[in-house]
């Protein structure tokens, strides 16, 4: 095999590797976004959503639209944490609010 052919094969392998990694990053982002979105909906249902969660989800969406899936995934994961804390807060406050009532 000539040097040129070897070079072409290597280039093709590299391109396909990149596109596989790109597709995988996109899938990972989509998965993280869906998870965060579902948790945010839980908080909304509990009437206790945080404004920061919605903003972070929007930012994740924007980054994904630019093809920055790594950054988008990190934002989606952050949104999930925020939503999860909001859900936890709502559950804790079901009884904790009693402590705030003056006696």
């Amino acid at each position, binding site marked *: 095999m000539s040097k040129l052919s070897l070079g072409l094969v290597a280039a093709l392998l590299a391109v396909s590797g990149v596109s596989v990694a790109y597709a995988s990053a996109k899938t990972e982002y989509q998965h993280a976004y869906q998870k965060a979105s579902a948790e945010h909906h839980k908080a909304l249902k509990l009437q206790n959503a945080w404004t920061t969660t919605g903003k972070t989800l929007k930012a994740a969406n924007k980054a994904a639209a630019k093809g920055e899936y790594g950054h988008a995934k990190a934002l989606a994961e952050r949104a999930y944490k925020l939503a999860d804390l909001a859900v936890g807060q709502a559950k804790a406050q079901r009884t904790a609010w*009693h402590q*705030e009532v*003056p006696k």
Partner: protein
Amino acid sequence: MKRYFAGKLILAGLVMIAAAGPAFGSPSADLKAFQHYFNNRFPKVKTGDFVNGPYAVNAAARAQWKQIMQFPPYTFAVSDGKQLFHQKFANGKSYADCFAHGGVGIRQNYPYFDTSKERVITLEAAINNCRKANGEKPYPYKKGKIAEIAAYMAHTSRGKKFDIKIPDDPKAKAAYEAGKKFFYERRGQLNFSCASCHMYESGKHLRSQVLAPALGILASFPIYRSKWGALGTIDRRFIGCNKKVRSKPFKPQSKIYRDLEYFLTYMSNGLPVAGPGARP
């Protein structure tokens, strides 16, 4: 044996009541404890003076406010509200036909629980209900004409004491309890409740602003805020407060805001109407 079980049942009941604690106190007991809290916190302030919000508890702010009140910033809005209030609808009727006493001197009775509609009716909702009943489009709830009409109606009621009733109806009590829970529960990323600022930190500074005590806090609505440069309704304020603690706000006149207004205004029973008011 029967006695033994009856005794157990009574004991279980007592334990449940004790566990429920003050959160499930009667509205009248809540009112007493609520007003007592503020009277203790600010012993020099007369109960009726709490309707002046931060100006009741901070001497410097009060001095500034007295100067502002020489030419109250809401004067034109009240006059516009009066004009709007007396304007006839296309069908020849007016707001006066929708309200008791022609809509004059009635602010102290709002919000109320409508047992037939099974919901809390705020003054702003009543204004829009009147419009809809007469074939007119409802106004947006946060500012503008609805705030002007409410300002005029409050102005005609100044000095009358709030007299919010909780009818003997489980749904009315549930609305009151929902409002009470919303007031005390912590929310948003900053983990604040309404009570965090307006009870336990009331009178203190949040940056340059003095936190208004919750007692009488709605008595001056609608208010002209210098920050807004215009009049705003209670809905506008609730939404602003929620946003500040990074909690997603609800829609104006949503059930939760109406219930909150119901609870909070009930807590001001006996205090005079002071609306419209001026705030920083």
